[in-house]
Every structure is written in structure tokens, then in C-alpha cells.
């Protein structure tokens, strides 16, 4: 992996050295993937969406300004990709689904049952948040960007981002606690629903 900055890599891509997009992919695909998982609640679709971000990086490479930070530009593309995904789901009249990868059938999967359960509960708690709070929370958690840059992406002041993140975390905490309480009251029912 080179020591070039993200900006330098993107400028190289702009000038035609497309192979350097691979380095940007290696650096950022995980946080993009995690952001999408939290935004759209669908792990398989999130992989497609990460790929779409890199397709758009190529398509819109001329719009990248070398004096601008790379992260906010990339997450602006990602935000648009997530928006388009939601629109296409609406067109297909698909409602939000449970995460696609339910419990693994492979041997040894039982050991991960507790992690899976936490993840499913967290997915449901996140899905209950208003979209703008879920978005700002996902960006705060995974983008490694300051509130100022997040605010520039979502069209809000850093102060407003701070308030939204705080409220989103508190809402998430309350929603998660409710789910845990409800499910712990009827553990057998949960098993029959989750598989």
C-alpha cells in the first residue's frame, strides 16, 4: 500500500491512472460497507452499494476538486447512492426487510448466536430511528469525519449535527432496551420468528 494521501490517489485516478482506485477501495470499503449496513439494513445490498460508490467515483471523477478533502466527497457520493437505493426500493414496493443474512447454517454457528442476536436487535433498533438521525449517527460512527464535514454533507451546522447524534444515540439506547425487554419476556417466540 502506498503512502500517498487519499487526495493524491484521487487526483491520479482523475488523470487516468485508474488502478489507483484499487488503493482507495482498500482504504475505505469497510467503513463505507458498515455505513451502508446501518443506513439500509441489508448486508447483501450494502456490498452492491459500496461497489456503486466506486463506479460513481470513476464516472464523476472530473467533479473532484484537488483542493477539497476526499472523505466528504466520497461520503456525499455514498449518501446519494443510498438515496437512489431507497428510491428504487420504493419503486419496487419493497418494504424494509429484516437483514438478509439470518443465522448461518454452517456448523459452529450456534457459538455466534449471542452476537447474532445482539446484531439483529441493534438492526431493529436502528430501523426504528428517523432516517435523518440514522444517517447522521452512521456517518459519525464510521466516516471518521468531524461534525463540520458531516454537517456539510447533510446540510446542517456542526451544532445541529452534535444535537442529532446525541438524540440518535439516546433514541437508539431506548429502542434497544425496549427490544431486549420485549424479547426477554418471550424468548421462545423470538426463536420461531428469527429463523
Amino acid at each position: 500500500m502506498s503512502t500517498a494521501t487519499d487526495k493524491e490517489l484521487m487526483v491520479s485516478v482523475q488523470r487516468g491512472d485508474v488502478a489507483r482506485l484499487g488503493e482507495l477501495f482498500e482504504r475505505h470499503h469497510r467503513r463505507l460497507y458498515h455505513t451502508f449496513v446501518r443506513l439500509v439494513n441489508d448486508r447483501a445490498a450494502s456490498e452492491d452499494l459500496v461497489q456503486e460508490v466506486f463506479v460513481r467515483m470513476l464516472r464523476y471523477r472530473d467533479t473532484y476538486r484537488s483542493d477539497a478533502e476526499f472523505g466528504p466527497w466520497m461520503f456525499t457520493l455514498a449518501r446519494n447512492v443510498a438515496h437512489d437505493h431507497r428510491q428504487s426500493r420504493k419503486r419496487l414496493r419493497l418494504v424494509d426487510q429484516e437483514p438478509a443474512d439470518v443465522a448461518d447454517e454452517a456448523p459452529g454457528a450456534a457459538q455466534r448466536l449471542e452476537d447474532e442476536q445482539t446484531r439483529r436487535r441493534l438492526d431493529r433498533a436502528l430501523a426504528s430511528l428517523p432516517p435523518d438521525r440514522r444517517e447522521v449517527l452512521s456517518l459519525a460512527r464510521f466516516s471518521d469525519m468531524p461534525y463540520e464535514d458531516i454537517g456539510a454533507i447533510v446540510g446542517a451546522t456542526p451544532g445541529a449535527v452534535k444535537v442529532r447524534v446525541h438524540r440518535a444515540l439516546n433514541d437508539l439506547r431506548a429502542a434497544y432496551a425496549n427490544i431486549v425487554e420485549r424479547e426477554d419476556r418471550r424468548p421462545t417466540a423470538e426463536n420461531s420468528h428469527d429463523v
Partner: protein
Amino acid sequence: MTCELMQERISARLSGELDTAECDELDRHLAQCPACSEHAAELERLWSALGDEPVPSERMRARVNELIAREPQTTRRPERPWQRAAERLLPIAATLVLGVGLGYFWNDGERTEVAALRGEVADLHAAVAASLLGQSSVSARLRGVAYTRDLGSDDDAVTDALLHALREDPDVNVRLAAIEALVPQLSHDPRQGELVSAVAVQSSPLVQLSLIDALLDSGGEPVRRELERLVNDPRLDLPVRGYLRDRLGRSV
């Protein structure tokens, strides 16, 4: 300091937005306030769990590498306005050629040449469709799919280009548009089986579900039998298989 302000700081610290002095002040408060301390511990657990995700599959890396490999390693110029105009004008030009040619040959009674001209125009349509579907821009490829749908052509070359888009296009929206164009075109056609086989190779459940819906809504018994074989195909995710089983049950 109120607990409310300190709880705001707990959230800000998780996002890395707190300076050292504010952090110290928060720590002093947490040391003497059990309620805020418990609140902080819960938020930290949630924050950590949010990041506790499996890594994405290697398939995604392979697809992006393929995308990079397909892109020419040369300086790319932005799309010029005339290129877009040419894309729009090509179908019009093809229609004009057909009209003028038909008039000319019809008057001369040269019906065989009219047939030949029709064939050439069909080839031209197929070439325009293939050219649009091969563009790097997603919007151009979507225009390509719309163009083939408007043509209503049953030309094999156009069908091939659409099937290729359905199987290989990196963009979900292009693949979904290709389904809309292909399913009516291949209704009651032997090549409908190729659509069924495309279900299993799709990486996106969204595309798989759309394809299943479209096939069951427009296909006959042979398609249904082929889809039944996919119910136990391990290449399909469990929820997709469940959906297919449910749809097959409902469309009996």
C-alpha cells in the same frame, strides 16, 4: 455542571468531538455520578456494537477490481455535449434511413432490397443498443435499456446485450431496468430459461426478488418448474429462497 450537559458530552466524546479539558471534566463528573456513569457505559457498548460487523465478502473486491480492469488506463476526457447529442440522434437517423430507403425501394418495387435494408437497420439498432449498454456511465446504460425497450425488437443481438447487462452490469438499477425490458420480450420464448438461470448468479437479493416476481407474473408452467429447482439452491440466500417458496405457493 448538569447531568444533561455531561450526557451530551458522552455522545460527543464517542464521535471524537471533545477536547482534552472537556474530557477531563466529563471524567470527573462520571466518577461521582452513578447515573451518568451507567449511561456512558451503555452508550459505549452500543457504539462498539455498531461497529461490530462482519467484513464484506471477497466477491465485492473482485467486482471492483474487474471494474477497474475494464476502465482504460488513459486520461479520460469528460463526456462532450456532442457525444450525448449523437446518442440521441442515432435512433432518429436510423429511422430516417429506414423511411427514405423504404420510399425509394418501394417505388421501384425492389422488395428484396427493402428486406435487406430492414435487416441493416435492425443491425444498426442493435449496434446503438450495444454501444449504449457498454458505456461507463450508468445513466447512458439506463438510456440503452430504455432504448431497447422502446424498440420492442426481438433481435437476438439486442436480447444478448440485455442478458449480458442483467448478468454482468455492476449497477443494480441497470440490472433492474434490464429485467423490465427482457421479461415481456422473452415471454413464451425458449430463451426465458436464461432469465431463470440469471436468478442464481445475481449478487443482489433485490434483483433476485424482482426477477422472480417478473418471471412468475409473465412466465408459464416451464418457467415455474425451473424456478422450483432453485428453492433448494444454496447459491441463493435463505431469505430469497423463502420468498421464492412463498411466491411459488401463492401463484399455484
